[in-house]
C-alpha cells in the first residue's frame, strides 16, 4: 500500500511510519498541515492517515480541501482524546474512519486494511450474495448455508457474520465489530464481543472439519478460507 501520514507528534509518527514500513508499505510522512496537503493533492495514495491538530493547517481542512477537488482516497483521522469529541464531526467532514490516540497498532492496521479494500471496491453494485469457502450467505433471502446445511441465525448474528464475510481475510477488531454491527462507538474492554463470536462460531464452525472463524491474539478475529 502507498500511505500518507500527516502527523506532527514525532513519537506517533515514527511509530506509525516504522510499523507500516515493516508491513511492506510505502510511507510518506509530513509533520506540517500545508506540506501534507500538497503531498495529498499531488501524489496518489491508497490511504491517508491525518491527525486532527496540525501546525499550518488542521486535519479537517485538509480533508475538505482534497475532497473538494474530487479526491476520494480513504482517510483515517487520528485524534487525541481530549480534543472536543469530534468523531461525528470528523466523519461528516469527509473522513472515512476515526481513531482516538492512543491506539493499538493492530487496530490501526485492521482499519486501514478495511478502508483500502472498501475504497477499491467502491462503485460496484450492491452485493446480494457472500461466500467464504463453503459458507454462503444470501443477503436478500437472509439465509445462511454451510455446505448443504442451513444455519439458523439471530438477526444480530446474521449482521455479525455479514460483516465478517464482507471483510473475509481481514482482521477485524472488537471495537470495529461494536461500531459496525452494533453501531455504538466505544472500546468494550470486556469479553462481551467474544461471547457473541463464540456463539456464532458454534453455529457455523462447530460441526465442520474446517474452522473458518479464527481469533487473532491481541487483535481480533478473522474469517478466512485458509487457516
Amino acid at each position, binding site marked *: 500500500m502507498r500511505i500518507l501520514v500527516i502527523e506532527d507528534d514525532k513519537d506517533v509518527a515514527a511509530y506509525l511510519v516504522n510499523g507500516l514500513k515493516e508491513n511492506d508499505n510505502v510511507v510518506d510522512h509530513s509533520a506540517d498541515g500545508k506540506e501534507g496537503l500538497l503531498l495529498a493533492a499531488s501524489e496518489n495514495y491508497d490511504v491517508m492517515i491525518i491527525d486532527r491538530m496540525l501546525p499550518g493547517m488542521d486535519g479537517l481542512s485538509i480533508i475538505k480541501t482534497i475532497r473538494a477537488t474530487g479526491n476520494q482516497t480513504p482517510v483515517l483521522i487520528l485524534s487525541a482524546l481530549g480534543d472536543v469529541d469530534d468523531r461525528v464531526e470528523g466523519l461528516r467532514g469527509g473522513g472515512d474512519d476515526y481513531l482516538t490516540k492512543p491506539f493499538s497498532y493492530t487496530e490501526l492496521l485492521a482499519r486501514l486494511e478495511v478502508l483500502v479494500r472498501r475504497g477499491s471496491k467502491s462503485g460496484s453494485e450492491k452485493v446480494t450474495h457472500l461466500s467464504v469457502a463453503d459458507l454462503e450467505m444470501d443477503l436478500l433471502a437472509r439465509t445462511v448455508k454451510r455446505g448443504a446445511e442451513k444455519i439458523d441465525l439471530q438477526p444480530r448474528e446474521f449482521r455479525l457474520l455479514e460483516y465478517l464475510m464482507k471483510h473475509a481475510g481481514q482482521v477485524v477488531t472488537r471495537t470495529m465489530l461494536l461500531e459496525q454491527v*452494533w453501531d*455504538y462507538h466505544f472500546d468494550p474492554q470486556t469479553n462481551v464481543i467474544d461471547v457473541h463470536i463464540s456463539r456464532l462460531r458454534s453455529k457455523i464452525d462447530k460441526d465442520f472439519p474446517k474452522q473458518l472463524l479464527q481469533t487473532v491474539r491481541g487483535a481480533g478475529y478473522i474469517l478466512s478460507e485458509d487457516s
Partner: protein
Amino acid sequence: MYMVLFATSVFILMGFIYWATAGYMSSQTDETIEAEIIGLAEQYQRQGLNGLISVIRERVARDPNGKAVYLFTARDFIKLAGNISKWPEDGEVQEGWLNFTLNDGLGWHTEEARPARARVFIVPGGLRLLVGRDVNEFMAVKKLVERAINFGMGITFALAMFGGIMMSRSTAKRVEIINQTSQKIMAGNLSLRIPDRGTNDDFDQLARNLNEMLDKIVQLMEGIRHISDNIAHDLRTPLTRLRNQLENTLMNVERDQDRQNVARAVAEADQLLATFNALLRIARLEVGSKISNFETFDLSALAQDAGELYEALSEDKQQTFSLRVEKDITILGDRDLLFQTLCNLIDNAIKYTPEGGNIVLSLSNGEKELALEVADSGIGIPEEERDKVFQRFYRVAKSRSLPGNGLGLSLVLAVMDIHHSKVRLSDNNPGLKVTLVFPKKTNVPAALKNV
C-alpha cells in the same frame, strides 16, 4: 428566652411606675387629710366643741363644691356639722382610715357615686369626726395609669413577641440556609456557596469563613485531580509506546511460551491504558466538553441493544437475564456515552452476581422521570459505602479481589452529570439496584439550550 427576660423587666418597670404614681397620689391625699385634721384639732383645742363645729361649717360654706368631706356627729351618729348628711353605711366607726362611697344617700351634691377616703377620730365624749376627701379624680387618674400601663404592657408584649419571633425566625432561617447549603455541598455539589447577605453581621462573617474554607477545599481537590489527570496524560504516551513495542515483539516471537507471556504483558498494558483513559474521560466529562454530541435518540432501542449485547455473557454464567423495556422512549443525550454507561452497569451486575443469579434490565417511563435500571441478585453494596463508590478508585471491600479499576461508577456519575440526571443506588434484597434517573423536563442541559 430573651423574650421572657425582656417581658419580665418591662413588667417590673411598669409595676414600679404604677406603684410610685399610685403611692404618691394616695400619700398626697392622706397628707391633705392629716393637715386638715391638724387644723381642726388646733381649733378644737383653742375653741372647744363649738369652735370645731363652726370651723367645719365655715369650711363647708367656703367651698361648697370642694373635695373635702366633713362630718361631725354626736355619739348616736346625729349630725352636728359637715357636708354629708349621715355616717357612710360601708364605713367603720372606729378611729382610723376609712374608704367609702359618696352618694345621694349621704346628701352629697352629685349624680354619681364617688369614691372617698377619710379619717375617723373619736373626739372625747364619744363624738365622732370624719375628715375626708373625694378621691374620685385620684381614682380616675389611678385607673388611667392602670389602663395606660396595661395597654402599654400589652403593646410591649405584642411587639416583643412579634420582634422575638421575627428575630428568631430570621436567625433560624439563616441557620437553616447554612445547614441546607452545607448538606448540598456534602452531597457533592462543591461549587455551591453560602449566600452572603451583605449585612456584615455574625452570620455573614460565618458564611464568609465557611465559603473561604470551601474555596480552599476545592482548590486542594482540583490540585489533586490535576495531578492525577496530568499523570494519566503524561504517562499515557510512554505507556502506549511500551504497549506498541510489546505488540511488535509479539509478532516476531517464535516460542509459544514467550508469545503467551508477551501477550499477557500487552493485556496488562491495555488494562493500565484503559484506567488512564477512564480517568481522563471522567476529567473531560467533568469539564463538560462532551456536550457537543447530544442528539435525540431512542433510549428504548439503546436499552434493548445493551441487553442483547450482554444477555449472552450473562447466560454463559447461568444467570437469568430479563429485559423489561418500555417502547418508544426517546431522550436527548450522548448516545455512545449512555450506551457505554449502561454497558458498564450491566457488566458490573454480571461480574458481581454469582452463577445462577438474576439480572433485570428495565426502562420505565414515569410521570416525572425516566428510569433506566439494572438490578442484580449479587453481593450488593453495603449502605454505608454507597456514597463512596462514586469516588475515583474506591472499591467495595468485598469486591477488591475481583478485577476492576474502581473508576466505573465515577464514570457513570460523570456521564449522568452532563445529562443533568442522577444515579441512585438501592438495595435489591439481595443484590444491588442501580437506577439512572432522567428528569423529564430538564433533559435539555442549559448549555445546549443556548445553541
